[in-house]
């Protein structure tokens, strides 16, 4: 294998991609961004501009007027507030419960631990959405219809968070530190709080933001269990905007642009870490 060694910086691993590859990637990137830009574009124009023979890609001057109409049509402030409460609570809860469970699976030894972890992974494949009818009945029995806890409680802890945080603990929590804490007489929870949690705080933050985005974007269950007039989330409010008698695209897409804004903001800040988290999960999962 002497030859192979000599040629080690092979064109597969190190050689730079040619212009053709970059050109293709630029096309993909444009396709990724275009619908978002287009949404903003329509939001900035009067509906009549849609009828132009040649659609212009330059924003118009009606953005604030259209945004104003969004707030006049639905209670978008309330929707934003609700979404913030739901996504915020779900994110914090997933960070706490997910890190605890992840820590247990990564660093504590208990009977059936590995088997139970496989069960956690398996649950993410179960199409729980199909249980929506009894879930709705359950919420009615609890008198939770139209309340935010109906959306929050089922999402308090997800398999994905447990998986993500187990990974993080495997990487960042050294056994030596845990043993040292134990020798000093720390209980499991104290060890978690003083040793494990500080070590995985960065990963927990990224996971929390990711969970926040997922909860913010959720649509199916909030549509069913929330009252679109009294307790909408942002996504439910969007569907209300869309269900008018005639299709008002400037209005709809102004709402969509607003709904997307916080998530795009978080994504721009944390893209590198989120990409890393997804790719790591793929390799080790």
């Amino acid at each position, binding site marked *: 294998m002497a030859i*192979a060694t000599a*040629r080690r910086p*092979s*064109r*597969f691993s190190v050689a730079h*991609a040619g212009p053709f*590859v970059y050109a293709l990637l630029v096309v*993909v990137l444009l396709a*990724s961004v275009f*619908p978002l830009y287009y*949404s903003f574009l*329509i939001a900035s124009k009067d509906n009549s501009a849609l009828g132009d023979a040649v659609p212009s890609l330059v924003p118009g001057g009606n953005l604030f007027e259209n945004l104003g109409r969004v707030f006049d049509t639905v209670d978008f402030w309330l929707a934003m507030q609700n979404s913030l409460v739901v996504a915020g609570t779900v994110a914090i809860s997933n960070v706490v419960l997910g890190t*605890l*469970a992840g820590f*247990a*699976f990564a*660093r*504590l*030894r208990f009977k059936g*631990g590995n088997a*139970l972890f496989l069960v956690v*992974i398996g*649950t993410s*494949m*179960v*199409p*729980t*959405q*199909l*249980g*929506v*009818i009894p879930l*709705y009945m*359950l919420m009615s029995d609890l008198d939770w219809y139209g309340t935010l806890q109906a959306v929050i409680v089922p999402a*308090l*802890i997800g398999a994905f968070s*447990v998986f993500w945080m187990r990974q993080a603990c495997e990487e960042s929590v050294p056994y030596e530190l*845990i043993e040292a804490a134990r020798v000093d007489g720390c*209980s*499991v929870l104290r060890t978690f709080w003083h040793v494990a949690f500080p070590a995985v705080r960065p990963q927990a933050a990224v996971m929390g933001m990711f969970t926040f985005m997922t909860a*913010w*974007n959720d*649509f199916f269950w909030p549509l069913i269990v929330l009252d679109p007039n009294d307790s909408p989330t942002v*996504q439910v409010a*969007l*569907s209300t905007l*869309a*269900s008018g008698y005639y299709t008002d695209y400037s209005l*709809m897409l102004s*709402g*969509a642009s607003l*709904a997307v804004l916080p998530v795009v903001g978080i*994504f721009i800040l944390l*893209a*590198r870490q989120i*990409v890393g988290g*997804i*790719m790591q999960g*793929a*390799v080790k999962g």
Partner: protein
Amino acid sequence: MTVAPARSSGTGTKRPVPPPRAARQPWRLRLGWWDLKVTPYLIIAPFFVVFGIFGLYPLLYTAWVSLHDWQLIDGDQGFVGLANYTELLADQHFWNALGNTVSLFVLSTFPQLLAALGLAALLDRGLRGRAFWRAGVLLPNVISVAAVALVFAQLFGRDFGIINFLLGLVGVDPVDWRAETWASHLAISSMVMWRWTGYNALIYLAAMQSVPKDMYESAMLDGASRWRTFWSITVPSIRPTIMFTAIVSTIGGLQLFVEPQLFDPGGTATGTGGTDRQFQTLVMYLYEKGFRLFDAGYSSAIAWVLFMIILLVAVVNFTLTRRIASKG
């Protein structure tokens, strides 16, 4: 799947427990023993409790509800055996929704996974600004489906949609994307593809990067082209990942709801998926029956049939992908 490495030296974390004297031990030590034995179960319990109550129980209870004449508002009207199922089998709307679901699933999943493979291969080349490209392809995945559906509803508008404008430039007559069955399926699939191709590409990319480089080098020494190397080394090496994404996409694809539901803004409230139900999926039909017509029993029968179909397709998918990927 890696599992927690069971450490061979059993010291440190496990305190030796002397059973005969346990009763006379100071409470502190006994507490420590309890702590080690019980706390791990307590801190993983919330996941299982939440999943059990709000995930598994409703899913299983669906089967029970489906055997009753059960109204969402008025409750249980009595056991009817398989009546909901026999009615379902004779219901042409059910077959229509099943057909649409399968068509949308096939149209969105297979091209998407192929495109994701290609995109991953591009991203796997030595790129400048890797983080930028990766973030760029993932972006669509973090946008809410509801927002995406509204944007695409405009892009695919019959009169002022930009897709029809572009088609017009090359001399194609405007397509009525909502009225035509095949056109609506294409438009809805494109939404699914837009949201998920980049995500799956990153998963493939991660798998590709763990393929040992020497395999490529020896293939190159043998004079294999990049194309051949890709199909006979890369793809077989990431087989488990391809299987994983195929199964996950199957489970998600067969439950398609939001994209078609919001594709027709005017008809959103009815949930019929177009005037002739051209793009009503099974979950949309389930939603219509359960939450528009309040027939919980019938709706549950739809859910349970879909659950069985998902199980079946997942198994078939699993075997098929394994066979295809192993040929290489």
